[in-house]
């Protein structure tokens, strides 16, 4: 049996997933639009497209669940004792009994269903037309900014011109009578406009916009105040000035939102080598729930990023998906050995 032919596990699973998951995805889109229209919060003074994330996540979750459940129920190698499993064991080449190709077919089906959703739905939910990259700034030294350590350098790893500095430092206990920390920012030694607020609360956000310019390093100077500030890796970022296309962000989001489906099917393939189909299906569904709805992995950050207009094709977000990808890959490798041992 050819793995990737039209009648192999890839093509058969792809067609089956498209046939069954497309209506589920369409239902998810319709429900999301209805619910968004019903509960849209018109009252907020300013726009908050990120708050519409449940309505973008809903059709993507529907597609992912439909694809995973369809694949697990369709391909006989995802579970012991299923009708057709013996035929697959005899006829299907490969060390996973076609599970890998079925998994690939399922992911392609998910991509075909989710990409139009990621392209068409965010504008309707209020997402900005363009995305901008956020470059995490690297604090030098200990990351402490206080009266005793009044200068802190923040390296900007990207050469892209930036247009905004965003700071959200940790605030320590006051060293005297409480007074918010007044900080002045410099870009490559050149003074930027004063920050609009002093730092008084932990993780208090302060944003400073300035004309776009390439910056190698920002320097923060502690001018007055009684509270020390701590800058960790997530406390400072610079926003790039080059707008990125929406389709690029949709593609990046597609890759990131496909991770839970991949992990679920990989774990399902592993458990299915030694367990009954119901156990394998429950394992895959639980893994998908954790990844897509439970917030473990890059699914929800990707959905939020698309809606907030954050450029997703950055190393940081893909690095956040590395543990999930490693888990899925490891599960598939282990499944090969388990299958070989079980078949002996």
């Amino acid at each position, binding site marked *: 049996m050819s793995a990737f032919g039209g009648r192999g596990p890839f093509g058969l699973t792809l067609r089956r997933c498209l046939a069954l998951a497309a209506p589920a995805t369409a239902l998810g889109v319709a429900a999301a639009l209805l619910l968004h229209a019903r509960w849209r919060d018109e009252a907020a*003074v300013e726009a908050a497209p990120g708050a519409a994330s449940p309505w973008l996540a809903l059709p993507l979750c529907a597609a992912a669940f439909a694809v995973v459940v369809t694949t697990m129920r369709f391909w006989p190698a995802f579970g012991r004792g299923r009708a057709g499993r013996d035929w697959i064991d005899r006829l299907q080449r490969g060390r996973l009994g076609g599970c890998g190709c079925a998994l690939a077919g399922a992911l392609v089906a998910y991509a075909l269903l989710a990409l139009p959703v990621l392209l068409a739905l965010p504008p309707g939910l209020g997402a900005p037309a363009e995305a901008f990259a956020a470059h995490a700034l690297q604090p030098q030294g200990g990351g402490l900014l206080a009266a005793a350590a009044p200068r802190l350098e923040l390296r900007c790893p990207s050469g892209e011109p930036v247009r905004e500095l965003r700071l959200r430092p940790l605030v320590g206990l006051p060293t005297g009578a409480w007074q918010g920390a007044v900080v002045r920012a410099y870009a490559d030694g050149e003074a930027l406009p004063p920050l609009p607020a002093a730092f008084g609360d932990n993780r208090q956000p302060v944003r400073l916009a300035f004309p776009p310019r390439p910056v190698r390093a920002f320097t923060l100077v502690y001018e007055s105040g009684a509270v020390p500030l701590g800058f960790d890796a997530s406390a400072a970022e610079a926003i790039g000035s080059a707008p990125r296309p929406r389709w690029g962000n949709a593609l990046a989001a597609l890759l990131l939102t496909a991770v839970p489906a991949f992990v679920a099917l990989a774990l399902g393939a592993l458990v299915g080598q030694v367990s009954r189909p119901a156990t394998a299906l429950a394992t895959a569904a639980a893994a998908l729930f954790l990844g897509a709805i439970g917030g473990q992995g890059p699914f929800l950050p990707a959905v939020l990023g698309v809606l907030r207009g954050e450029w997703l094709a950055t190393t940081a977000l893909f690095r956040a998906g590395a543990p999930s990808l490693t888990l899925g890959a490891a599960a598939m490798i282990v499944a090969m050995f388990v299958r070989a041992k079980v078949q002996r």
Partner: protein
Amino acid sequence: MTAGVLGVTLMVVAAAAAAALAAPTPADVGTVAQWAARPAALPFAWRGVRAAERHGDPVEAFVRARSLMRLLPEWADGFAAFAYRYTLAPDLADGAPEARAERTRARLLLALGWMDAARADAGRHEPSLLQAMAFLPEVAARGQPGLADALRAEGGPAALADRWLAVAEARFPSPEAGEQRTFYAARLAAGLLAAGDRNAALAVLQTASERSRAVRDQQLATTWRAHVDLAARALRGEAVDLGPVFADPRFADLYPHLR
């Protein structure tokens, strides 16, 4: 007929009888559906609020908080906490101070309207919700320069506060509510004077002076009333010794208008 079928039939009949007896309205059905969905939806709603707060976007956090509080309509403290957080959050947008003050005004009025709508479900916690509403305008005006001017059309922060103190006093009459509003008069009068309404300020002081006769601690009320009367006379243009008033920090908001 098997026992299973009999059990299901009995359940259906019982449910139909209950529905016929209770005659639920669509609103009742919605309430029951919300109650049933609440345990499943709450963790995700909370996570959404936390994610917005981590991102540092107060507007998104407030919109998500509104969604969360639809599931918890009786939690008056939650309404107050989220409304304060939204109103007092630093303004991240650029713009002139007047534009920032105007945005804060819009946020304040939105938050007050939201808390006002929540009163219907607050039950025994309504007085504390009204108190939170009364304090919010003053607290916001302290943190945002120019907000007091932006609230001139509403009578200033003190008038907004007094409006809710009056509602609290009318809805839940008690010595505490009455005294709180009485002693708030100096600040309210200062707000009215800042808005250029001297006659209204004098009326407030005169009313407060009369109301202070009902205050339980008459020793405290007598001193306070004497200072109120002195301030009122000074505002009417009489030559009086304002030393005792300037020595009383409860009248600090009135000092600029008495000099």
